[in-house]
């Protein structure tokens, strides 16, 4: 279990991280979202003890991260890099050795991992001969092959196509099943929504959201209404409590309400003539919440 307790990190006048609190249980996944410069990478570095916090502390299973805990860490930094002139196999073995594994343990597993992530190429190929996507997958293997208990992934999905993103999702879920505590950052809210148990959103170093994806969305209220109705958009717009109306390409009308309770009246109105195929009242999507929170004025 990883606990971040009231973390503060300053660089001169800049407060990069300002009072962050969260917990990642064994076998659960935390998504860290926020705009560029929100403090995500600094948070990761504080967790990894690459930087020391000015206030607060990070506890791994109840104590500070110790030298021997390094062996149970898997870290994928945001910018991707491998040794270009080294073969895939040597690369994986080197990183695994640095995590305290022996060559004998890791060598027989390499083929299976390359298969799992569908890396195109032989393990005797030099890294520079691989495509960028394949290099990224090799790096993921380096991050995961030693079966770490604490996994930190900085933007793992960036640059992956949907097929490869799904392979990565599978890999992350597998690690979760194994009991690992996982934290990752992402710009893609779909990934976050699909695999995260918990979510933390940072803005200028502060936590603006914290909780399960469901709770966070519910906390904004079910103010999005998806309708399939012959009633014209203008008429819908004039109903009490409707802030705006727009249409989707599938022919749905999307209403934004000022309060969730308005839904009942609107339901009565649109079903006056009987059955309609779609009436769905939902909280805002993560993406909408993200934009909303990112756009809020400071303080």
């Amino acid at each position: 279990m990883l606990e971040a307790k009231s973390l503060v990190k300053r660089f001169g006048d800049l407060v990069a991280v300002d009072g962050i609190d969260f917990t990642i249980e064994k076998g659960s996944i935390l998504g860290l979202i926020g705009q560029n410069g929100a403090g995500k990478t600094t948070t990761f570095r504080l967790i990894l003890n690459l930087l020391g916090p000015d206030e607060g502390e990070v506890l791994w299973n109840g104590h500070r991260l110790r030298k021997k805990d390094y062996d149970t860490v898997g870290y994928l930094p945001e910018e991707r890099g491998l040794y270009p002139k080294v073969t895939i196999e040597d690369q994986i073995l080197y990183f695994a050795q640095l995590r305290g594994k022996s060559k004998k343990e890791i060598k027989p597993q390499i083929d299976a991992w390359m298969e799992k992530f569908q890396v195109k190429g032989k393990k005797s190929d030099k890294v520079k001969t691989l495509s960028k996507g394949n290099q990224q997958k090799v790096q993921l293997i380096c991050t995961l092959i030693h079966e770490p208990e604490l996994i930190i992934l900085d933007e793992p999905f960036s640059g992956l196509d949907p097929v490869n993103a799904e392979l990565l999702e599978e890999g992350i879920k597998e690690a979760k099943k194994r009991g690992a505590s996982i934290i990752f950052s992402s710009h893609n809210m779909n990934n976050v929504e699909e695999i995260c148990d918990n979510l933390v959103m940072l803005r200028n170093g502060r936590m603006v959201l914290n909780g399960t994806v469901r709770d966070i969305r519910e906390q904004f209220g079910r103010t999005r209404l998806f309708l399939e109705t012959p009633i014209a958009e203008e008429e819908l717009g004039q109903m009490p409590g409707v802030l705006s109306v727009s249409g989707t390409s599938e022919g749905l009308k999307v209403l934004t309400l000022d309060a969730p309770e308005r839904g009942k009246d609107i339901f009565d109105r649109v079903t006056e003539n009987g059955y309609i195929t779609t009436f769905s009242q939902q909280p805002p999507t993560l993406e909408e919440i993200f934009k909303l929170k990112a756009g809020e004025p400071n303080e």
Partner: protein
Amino acid sequence: MNKYWIILKEVYKKNVKSIGFVTMVLSPIILLGIVALIIYFVGRSETNQEPTSIAVLTEDSAVQEIMASPDIPLEVNADIASVEEAEEAMTEEKLDGYLVLETADDQIQGEYIHTEGNATETVAILNQVLSTYQVQIKGAAVGLTPEEVMDLVAPVEVQTTTVRIDEGEISQEDSLAETIQNWSAYAVSIGIFIFIMTYAGIIAEEVASEKGTRIMEVILSSVSSTAHFFGKLSGVLLICLTQIAIYVVLALVAYPFIRDIEWVQQLLEGVDLAAIFQSLLGYTLIFFLLGVIMYVVLAAFFGSLVTKIEDVNKSVTPIVFLAMIGFYGGLFAFASPDQPVVEVLSYVPFFTPFIMPFRIAANTVTTTGVWLSILGSTVFAVLLTYLSLMMYRSNVLIYSDTNMFQTIKRSWKVMQSDRKARTT
């Protein structure tokens, strides 16, 4: 296996297997081979040159005889007896020139007509032979025997001995030893410079490429920065020692073969190989190691400041300048080891390895002075390593496009705040 050893092994294996290392090791050997070949061919073309062939036109058969003697390195064609014949032979390129001699009142006068590009050597031989002959004729005229004549013209021998003042005493100067020391200091100076440039480049690139690709963050989340820093350093120093070992082995293997080559023998004549090795293994080795260590540590430090691998050369520039100052300081010390500026510079740690060997060779420094400079450099190297290590951890986390000085300042701040954060 200890993580320090894993890093050391990785650095070593990766570099020793690279084409860069092979070319680096081979290039001085190839260069040496080319120089040796040139010397060999130049030497051979000189010794194989055909002797100048001349004709001597004179009434005096005694001169003819002297000229034809095998002691004189000229080929005299005795069949030619007239100017016409000589000129004909010259047009057919069978003759290089002819000498016309006339004797009047025991005074020999000669004229040498030739087609040689440069006849200075031939004329000098002719002059000497004819002068000796004339002295003998004149000697005979006043009744002296040839032996008496030789006695008369025997030259005076002047012997030279250089002495040096050593702590108020005059002692015999061993000029050969000094020359050897001087040249081995010179060789070491060049050697240190080349090794420093090469290995500073290698380690700066090692560190910068890991930082630029963010591999560094992954590594520092698995090992301590101390293990990483020293692993890299020792790996690179081990590569350096490997290169030296290769040369030593090659020299030992090649020595029995090249020992018998004539020009090598000429080269080694009067050179005491044992004395050279002795001087190499003494202070020189200490200075060499100190120099390489100081500069390699500095290069690792500067390499860790780089944001992109492309900027590596920029980061090594200050080190190149520093080494250049040392190198030229050494050359200056070679020329004038008594200068006060040389004396001062020889105690500056970064310059000591370049300059001190020359001062030792020129005997302008006491043994105490030498050990003081070694001690100073050692303490400095330790401090430099400690400071570099301290800042290494914060350096590798800072990505900045500002100049290096700003980066160091920022890194210093991060280090300070980090140390404070860790102690609370």
